[in-house]
């Protein structure tokens, strides 16, 4: 599907300062050797199983299915992972790689705080020093996760510049990496950034899709008709999409953050409304103005609040392999409450975007059809936001 390593069609690449180019080359080399090394992969699978709690169930959401009177809906329960989201899959892979490379120190950016928590968790277990970069605005709205990271022994740097969200946290993490490239491993949290990160993170997240395939075959004897996942940078979605790439009968749907609506200008729907540009080392779809200035983005969910999509998503969009749609804040909140009440599962606001689209789609399909929704994380971290919307003070 691609000719040059690190390129997905015209997307991807390595648009970063020269200072880190040798480090990226070394990372690529180590990653390629590690994944070909059965011992490394066995260790990775060991931690996924014994520490993260994989495999996660593929749960038939019977009540939601009945309520919507349409396609059968299955939920891939990534929310049941240790630390509460899919992020740990990738973190375990990268931290094991850091260990293999003899690095003692890891850094990471975080939006909602899930990736930061996962990184701080793995660093605590493997005895590494850990520093997290988080936008000022996100520090404010995800105070609980900030405290969790600190409890785990990480240092949390609040990033004031720009919009004080995930984009700015990535900028600052990259700058820090440039200055400490010798002893520091940058644990990138999504399928974004310069090569080899988009490929590496996808390969550490594809376990979601690999398990889903086996589980749906076992439960229904066939592949699903739709796979729906939310897209911020796009790691949970690429993780579940990728193993189905060749199965053209499986429709892949990525759901972006529609915020207050696409015409309000307050959204994060780069694949739906963006244009091709370069951000954080990759060529991909971004939200930018006529002169390439990256535009402020918005979503009620901090994890989707990012102006670029992973380059492989850009490639999936361009080739038509996946379709990209959006759900607004309101639709996501509605889905959050519906899933909580019908199934007793409180989803992350990010994942609620995928649920929202499934709720729109399912009634249009027949009960023969199967939809898999990737429930990428749990919603404990968002309960305060929801309470605020309901006028409840906690």
């Amino acid at each position, binding site marked *: 599907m691609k000719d040059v390593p690190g390129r997905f069609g015209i997307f991807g690449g390595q648009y970063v300062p020269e200072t880190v180019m040798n480090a990226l080359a070394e990372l690529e080399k180590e990653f390629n050797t590690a994944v070909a090394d059965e011992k490394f992969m066995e260790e990775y699978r060991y931690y996924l199983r014994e520490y993260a709690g994989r495999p996660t169930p593929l749960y038939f959401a019977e009540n939601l299915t009945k309520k919507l009177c349409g396609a059968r809906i299955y939920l891939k329960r990534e929310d049941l992972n240790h630390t509460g989201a899919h992020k740990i899959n990738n973190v375990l892979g990268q931290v094991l790689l850091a260990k293999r490379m003899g690095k003692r120190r890891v850094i990471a950016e975080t939006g909602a705080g899930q990736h930061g928590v996962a990184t701080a968790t793995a660093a605590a277990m493997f005895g590494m020093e850990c520093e997290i970069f988080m936008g000022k605005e996100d520090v404010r709205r995800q105070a609980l996760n900030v405290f969790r990271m600190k409890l785990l022994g990480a240092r949390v740097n609040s990033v004031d510049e720009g919009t004080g969200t995930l984009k700015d946290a990535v900028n600052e993490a990259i700058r820090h990496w440039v200055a400490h490239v010798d002893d520091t491993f940058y644990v990138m949290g999504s399928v974004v950034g310069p090569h080899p990160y988009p490929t590496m993170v996808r390969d550490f997240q594809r376990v979601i899709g690999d398990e889903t395939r086996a589980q749906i075959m076992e439960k229904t004897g066939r592949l699903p008709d739709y796979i729906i996942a939310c897209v911020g940078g796009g790691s949970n979605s690429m993780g579940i999409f990728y193993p189905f790439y060749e199965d053209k009968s499986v429709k892949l749907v990525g759901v972006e953050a529609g915020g207050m609506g696409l015409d309000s200008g307050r959204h994060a729907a780069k694949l739906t409304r963006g244009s091709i540009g370069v951000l954080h080392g990759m060529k991909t779809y971004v939200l930018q103005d006529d*002169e*390439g200035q990256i535009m402020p983005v918005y979503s009620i969910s901090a994890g989707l609040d990012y102006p670029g999509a992973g380059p492989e998503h850009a490639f999936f969009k361009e080739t038509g392999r996946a379709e990209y749609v959006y759900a607004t804040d309101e639709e996501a909140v509605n889905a959050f409450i519906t899933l909580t009440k019908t199934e007793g599962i409180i989803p992350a606001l990010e994942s609620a975007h995928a649920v929202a689209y499934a709720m729109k789609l399912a009634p249009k399909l027949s009960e023969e059809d199967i939809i898999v929704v990737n429930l990428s994380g749990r919603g404990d971290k968002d309960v305060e936001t929801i309470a605020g919307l309901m006028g409840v003070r906690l």
Partner: protein
Amino acid sequence: MNRIDERLYSLQKTGQKALITFITAGDPDPETTGELVVAMERAGADIVELGIPYSDPLADGPVIQRASARALKAGIKIARIMDIVRSVRKTSDIPLVYLVYYNSVFRYGPERFTGEARDAGVDGLIIPDLPVEERREMADIVSSRGMHLIPLVAPTSHERIKNIVEGAGGFVYCISTKGVTGVREEIETDIKAYMEEVSRYTALPRALGFGISGPDMAKKFRDYCEGVIVGSAIVRLIEQGKDRRRMLSDVCEFVSRIKEVL
């Protein structure tokens, strides 16, 4: 002959080192940017880098980040920056280089951006997030217009230097240290060994930048390279300047003190 080559050649003949100064275009305002270029030339700058403000300047430290943000907030656009260059060119032949992040060029259109820059009187481009692996297309567009795409090397580059300098012109931008731009008290890199390593791969003039704080540091490194680049230290003076006249004279005085030791 490109103005950069002309200037560096004549300096080399007389045993002088080049002083390359950086300011952010549009900070504090477009008129002052033009005046600063002319004033710095009078004070002894040999080449001036004009930074094109960008929303996400990955290679820059806080001082230049703030300058970019100020200029953007004041509404600076690429067309206006081209105007600044045209107006400088009416009275000055100082070599001018744009320091521009790749997305600004990509979005504007590489052909259009480079063509307009050349027509306005720009002699070269420095694109800090376009490593050799990604620069092929851009290199042809720039060189076909008689401009230079200035190559950047870092203390971590080592064997990569060979490819980076191949076919390049103007000078080699030698990043002094790991990290982003910004004034430093001290530079830990073994500059002598680093500059020798660069010269094993190229005869191009080597200009040392990132972290150069002023005359003392310039003096310390002058013998190891063909030029020094000073950015954040000047931008900081612009930021701190309360009164415009005073700020201009502070910048001139600072630039001339560096030039004296080169």
